[in-house]
Structure formats: structure tokens, C-alpha cells
């Protein structure tokens, strides 16, 4: 299985940085708030290491997961703490912060639509920069133990590779961290062929 060279990883970092900036702007428009972001260094990390850093055993998260359907192989994962997910829904449906207490009906739809919008912007930008159409699949929502979510997502990756490209973006809303992280998880070989 072909992995990625350092040169390719540096190139991906530049591309994902541009994709993240566009996503951040789109998120600001979508939520009608000021969104800023921080980017972690892009690196190849053993799958197990990601679980170790993803939160304690009692931690609960809301995840929006989607496979990439066309262009490259891989997935996007949006991971929010439970509290941030509720906060985020309140922002989206214009309710006072603290209103949302579960993820049913409109709350669920609002988060899934957010994942759709951000994924399209992120992957469109990424695709333009590597000269191919990159199309997201349908998002799926999980509300569960953080380690269980990561366990399932990374098991799918483990079918084809033992390391993944760790590319994390953290978003903040109006200066307050909303603990909203986006992970771009490509299948390394498919990306390697495109660069």
C-alpha cells in the first residue's frame, strides 16, 4: 500500500488550509455569526493514536460522518461535544442558547445540513486545487461515546491502511470555542495518486 511522501503531506497541508478557510467562511454565513478557526499540523498518525487523543472513556460526542463518493477515496468527520452540538443547533435555528436539549427532528436535520454544506465547500475547494471533482456522500449522524465513534470510523480506515492523515480544524464562534472539529480522512493511496 503506497503511503504519502513528506512533500505530498506539505502540499496537502496547503490545500486543506485553503479548503478550511472557505469552510470557515461558509460556516459563518450559514450560522450568521463570526467563525474563526485553528488548524492543527497535518501529519500521518497511526490509527490508534487518534483514539488515545479523542477524549476520555466517558466522553460523549455528536459526529457527522460522510464518505467521499467521487474523486478520491476517504471520509470527512465532524466531531462536536454534546454541549457544542446543542449550542450549534440553537445558533442555526435562532433559539436562545441553552434551548436545545436533544437531537431529534429539526435539530438533527440542521446538523446534517451543516455537514452537507461544509463538506461540499471543503471538497469543492480541495477538488479545484488538485484538478478533479471531489464529491461528498450523504452524511450520517451519530450521538454516542466519543471512543466508540472513533473506533467505528477508524476501523473502516484500518481495512486499507494503518496510518491516517491527521488533519484537524477547530472552529470558534464569536470568540468562544464551540469545540467543533473537522477531520479529513483520505485513503492515503488514492490521494497519493492525485498529487
Amino acid at each position: 500500500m503506497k503511503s504519502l511522501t513528506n512533500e505530498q503531506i506539505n502540499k496537502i497541508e496547503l490545500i486543506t488550509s485553503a479548503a478550511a478557510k472557505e469552510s470557515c467562511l461558509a460556516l459563518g454565513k450559514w450560522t450568521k455569526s463570526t467563525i474563526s478557526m485553528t488548524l492543527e499540523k497535518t501529519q500521518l498518525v497511526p490509527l490508534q493514536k487518534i483514539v488515545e487523543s479523542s477524549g476520555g472513556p466517558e466522553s460523549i460526542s455528536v459526529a457527522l460522518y460522510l464518505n467521499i463518493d467521487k474523486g478520491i477515496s476517504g471520509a470527512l468527520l465532524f466531531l462536536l461535544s454534546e454541549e457544542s452540538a446543542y449550542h450549534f443547533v440553537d445558533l442555526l435555528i435562532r433559539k436562545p442558547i441553552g434551548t436545545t436539549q436533544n437531537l431529534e427532528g429539526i435539530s438533527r436535520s440542521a446538523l446534517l445540513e451543516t455537514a452537507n454544506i461544509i463538506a461540499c465547500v471543503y471538497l469543492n475547494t480541495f477538488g479545484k486545487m488538485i484538478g478533479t471533482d471531489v464529491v461528498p456522500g450523504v452524511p450520517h449522524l451519530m450521538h454516542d461515546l466519543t471512543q466508540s465513534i472513533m473506533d467505528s470510523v477508524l476501523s473502516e480506515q484500518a481495512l486499507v491502511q494503518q496510518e491516517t492523515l491527521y488533519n484537524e480544524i477547530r472552529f470558534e464562534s464569536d470568540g468562544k470555542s464551540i469545540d467543533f472539529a473537522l477531520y479529513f480522512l483520505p485513503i492515503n493511496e488514492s490521494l497519493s495518486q492525485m498529487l
Partner: protein
Amino acid sequence: MNKTILMGQHDTAKNPELLSTTLGSCVAIILFDKETKNWSMAHIMLPNGKDEKDSVELPGKYADTALPALLKMMNIPQSQASTRLTARLTGGANMLGVTKRDPLLQIGDRNIEAVKKYLKEYGIAVLAEDLGGTKGRRVTIDTVNNKIFVNQIGESKKELI
């Protein structure tokens, strides 16, 4: 002492230790030695790993290499596995919304099938199982009371009997 294993790891536990792991589509295979009253657990991610380079460092990651690794750690020869050991299984959830049309991606189901196959080959009886579904699980072996507990979000803690 509370011990935790992560994806692909395996470990043993003896009185008074607690041994835990958190699962999604992965499967935990839990063994109990009737002779020593010791326990062991592997957090299995994939069905087959004999040809994978990390199966030496992380034998607990694969169904086919986890069982020999657990037996070695418990100091039990394969010839005594069927008489001394019993097994419990948990995990194997389908959390990613993968449909039956994608059998290759139904890792949970494939892990369950592989683990059961290898346990049968070793003649180890499965006494209890809590498998599948769409929710993650936190499983803990309580070696003091010789019990196993499974936690899932929104449900009360249950014993794996």
C-alpha cells in the same frame, strides 16, 4: 487497579483489577480461565491480520492473531483452551449507517463472524454475547465479582451473563 485497553490492544486482569474498553464496530473477546480465575480481553478491529506488518506488535487487533496472543499472555497451552477457557463477546455495532448493500464495509458483522470461527476452532465455548446494533459500548470486567458490565448511552448498565 483500573486498566484500559484501546483499539487493537489486549491484556489480562486478575483480582482485584478492573479491565475496560470502549467499542464501536470493533469486537471485544473476553476469556475466563476456570482454573486460575484470571480474565483477558482483546479489542479486535479486523478479521484477518496474519499478513499485516503490525500483527506482531498488535496481535489483539486481528481476530486470527488475538486468540493465540491471549492464550500466551494467560500461560495456557492451546491443548487446554477448550477445557479451561470460556468466552464472552461484545461489540460489533454498525454505527456508520452502512447498508447491507456494502458487505465489505460491514466490519462489525465481519469481526463477529471471524471471532466466532476462531473460538470454534479452539473449542472455546461462548457463554454470553451482546453484539451488533447501532450503538457503541463501554465494557468492563470486574474481577472481584467475576462479572462483566456493558454500558450504552441512554440505557441502564447491563450484566453480560
